[in-house]
C-alpha cells in the first residue's frame, strides 16, 4: 500500500475559494454570484479583489440560478455559490430548464454537502444532490476529495464549456493530493494499484478509502483504490479495467446509496461486467445534528465500514 504523506488538513470549500480567486486573476469572463453565504463559501477573496464581478443576490437562490443562466447569454462564465441543498433541490427547475436543458455555461458550486455539515442538522445536510444533478442531461458532476483537488477542479471547469455541478464540504480533511495537479474532468485517478478488490471512492470518502487500504494491507488484502472525482461523465474504461483485474468492487461516498456513485457503478457493472458490489453510503435516511465525526461514525461513512464492505464483497467472489 502506497503512502500518502500530507503536511496539513484543510476544508475543500477553501480550495474552491482559492481556485475562484485564481480565476479572477486569469479569466476576465468569470463572475461569481452568492446567496448570502460569502463567508461559508470562502468567496471573500474574490469579492474583495474583483468587486465589479461579484454579485451578492441575497437569500434568493432560484433568482441566482436564473441570473447566472442569463449572464451566459452575455458571454460571462458564472460561478454560483450556496450550500449544496440550496444549490440543487431548492432550484432544481431553474437548473433543469434554464441551465441544463438550455446547455448553459453555469458552474453550480455547492458547499456543506453531506452529513459533515454537522450541528445545523438535517435541513441543511443534503445527501441526494449527486443523484439529482447526474440525472440531468448535459450536466457534469464533480466531487473532489481535498483542498488541492477542489482548487484544481474549480480552475479546470472554467475552461470547460457547459453546465457543471461542483460539490465540496465544510470539514477539514487531509490535503494529500499534489498542489500542482492537473485536473482532468472525467478521468478516474488510481491512487493505489492492487489486485484483490477495487475501491471506488469520491469526495471525503477518498481519504477514508486510503485509511481502509492500510488496514486491509495489514490483513494481507491488496486493494486497488481509485478516486472518482467526476461522477459524470463516469470513467467507465478505468472502472472496467480495474474490475476486470480484481473481480469485486466497493463504492464509498457521503451520499444516499440511491442515485450516487455506487448506483452509477452498479449500472455499469450490470450492463458490462456483472460482478459483486458492496456500497458504502447513507441508506435512505435524512441526517441529524452532531459533530462531523459522530455522524460519519453513525452513518458508517468511514474506513471501518469500507473494510467490512471489502471483506463481505471478497467473500462473494
Amino acid at each position, binding site marked *: 500500500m502506497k503512502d500518502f504523506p500530507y503536511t496539513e488538513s484543510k476544508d475543500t470549500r477553501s480550495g474552491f475559494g482559492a481556485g475562484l480567486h485564481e480565476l479572477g486573476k486569469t479569466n476576465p469572463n468569470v463572475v461569481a454570484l452568492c446567496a448570502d453565504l460569502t463567508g461559508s463559501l470562502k468567496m471573500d477573496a474574490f469579492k474583495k479583489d474583483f468587486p465589479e464581478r461579484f454579485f451578492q443576490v441575497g437569500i434568493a437562490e432560484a433568482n441566482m440560478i436564473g441570473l447566472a443562466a442569463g449572464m451566459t447569454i452575455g458571454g460571462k462564465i458564472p460561478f454560483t455559490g450556496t450550500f449544496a441543498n440550496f444549490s440543487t433541490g431548492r432550484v432544481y427547475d431553474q437548473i433543469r430548464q434554464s441551465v441544463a436543458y438550455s446547455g448553459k455555461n453555469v458552474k453550480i458550486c455547492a458547499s456543506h454537502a453531506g452529513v459533515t455539515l454537522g450541528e445545523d*442538522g438535517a435541513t441543511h445536510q443534503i445527501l441526494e444532490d449527486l443523484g439529482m444533478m447526474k440525472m440531468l442531461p448535459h450536466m457534469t458532476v464533480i466531487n473532489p476529495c481535498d483542498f488541492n483537488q477542489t482548487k484544481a477542479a474549480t480552475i479546470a471547469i472554467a475552461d470547460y464549456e457547459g453546465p457543471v455541478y461542483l460539490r465540496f464540504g465544510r470539514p477539514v480533511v487531509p490535503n494529500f493530493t499534489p498542489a500542482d495537479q492537473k485536473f482532468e474532468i472525467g478521468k478516474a485517478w488510481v491512487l493505489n494499484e492492487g489486485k484483490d478488490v477495487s475501491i471506488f471512492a469520491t469526495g471525503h470518502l477518498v481519504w477514508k478509502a486510503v485509511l481502509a487500504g492500510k488496514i486491509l494491507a495489514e490483513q494481507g488484502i491488496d486493494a486497488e483504490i481509485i478516486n472518482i472525482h467526476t461522477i459524470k461523465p463516469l470513467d467507465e474504461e478505468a472502472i472496467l479495467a480495474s474490475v476486470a483485474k480484481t473481480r469485486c468492487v466497493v463504492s464509498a461516498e457521503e451520499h444516499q446509496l440511491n442515485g450516487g456513485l455506487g448506483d452509477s457503478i452498479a449500472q455499469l457493472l450490470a450492463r458490462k461486467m456483472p460482478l459483486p458490489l458492496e456500497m458504502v453510503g447513507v441508506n435512505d435516511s435524512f441526517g441529524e445534528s452532531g459533530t462531523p465525526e459522530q*455522524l460519519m461514525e453513525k452513518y458508517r461513512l468511514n474506513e471501518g465500514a469500507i473494510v467490512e464492505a471489502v471483506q463481505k464483497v471478497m467473500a462473494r467472489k
Partner: protein
Amino acid sequence: MTPKELALKSIGYRKNILKYIYGANAGHTGGSLSCIDILNVLYNHTLNVGPDNFKSPDRDRYIQSKGHCVEALFVVLADKGFFPESDLETLCRYKSHYIGHPTRKVNGVEQNTGALGHGLPISVGTALAAKMDNKAYRVFTLLGDGELPEGSNWEAALTAAHYKLDNLTAIIDHNKLQITGRTSDVCNTDPIDLKFESFGWAVRHVDGHDFKMLQETLDELPFTDSKPSLIIAHTVKGKGISYMEDELKWHHGVPNKQQYAQAIEELDNAVATL
C-alpha cells in the same frame, strides 16, 4: 400578563437562549435575541396553544419560517411546559431531537423549517384549511427580513390576499441584518410596507421590543376584514447584550466563557431597571 411581567420573562428567556447556545457551542444567537420578545408575547398573550391543547384541531398555529433561530422557540416551548427545560442541555448534540432547526420530533413544533422562504406558503396553506372548515383558529408565522427576497414569499403573499385570509398574520423580524451584511446593502426590500399593501395586505409597524405595543397590536388582529395582516417588527439583532447588538458577527456567533459571563451579568442587571 402585564408588559412588565412579560419584560421579566424575556430576561429569563434571553438567559436561557445564551445558556443553551453556550452549552451546545452552536446556535443562532443574534436572531434568537431579536425575535424572543415577539415569541414571548405570542405564546404568553396571543396564541391559544399549550401542551394541553396541542392536539386540538382548534388550536392557534405558529410556524417559524426563520427556523435557524430555533433556540428562541425551544426556550419558550420549554417554559410553556411542552417538554422539560433540561432537555435543552442536549441541544444540537448527537442523538438529540433538539437539533439545530425546528423539527416535529419536538413537542409543540408544527412544522420542520430551516430552509428559508418556506414558512409563509405553509402558513397560507394552513390558513386556507381553516377557512375551508370554518374554523376560528388563527395562523401566525415569523419571517426574517433577509429571507424576504425568496420568491416563494411573494407567491404566497399573492395567494393569501387572493383568498382574503384574515386569519393569517405574518410577522417580520426586521433586525436589518442577515449573514453577509445589512439587508439594505445585500438586497434592498424597502419599502416593505408599500409592497405588501399593494399585494393586498394590511400592514402595521411595531417596536418589536415594546411589550405593550406588541400586545395592543396583536389584540387588534385582523387589522382589516378580509385581508391578511403583516406586522413589521422593528428589532435589534442581539438585543439585550451590549456587545452583540446590531453586530453582524453574532448571527451565528457563540460567546466564549468571559463573554457569556458578561452577558448573564448584563441580563441580571437589567432586572433592576424594569
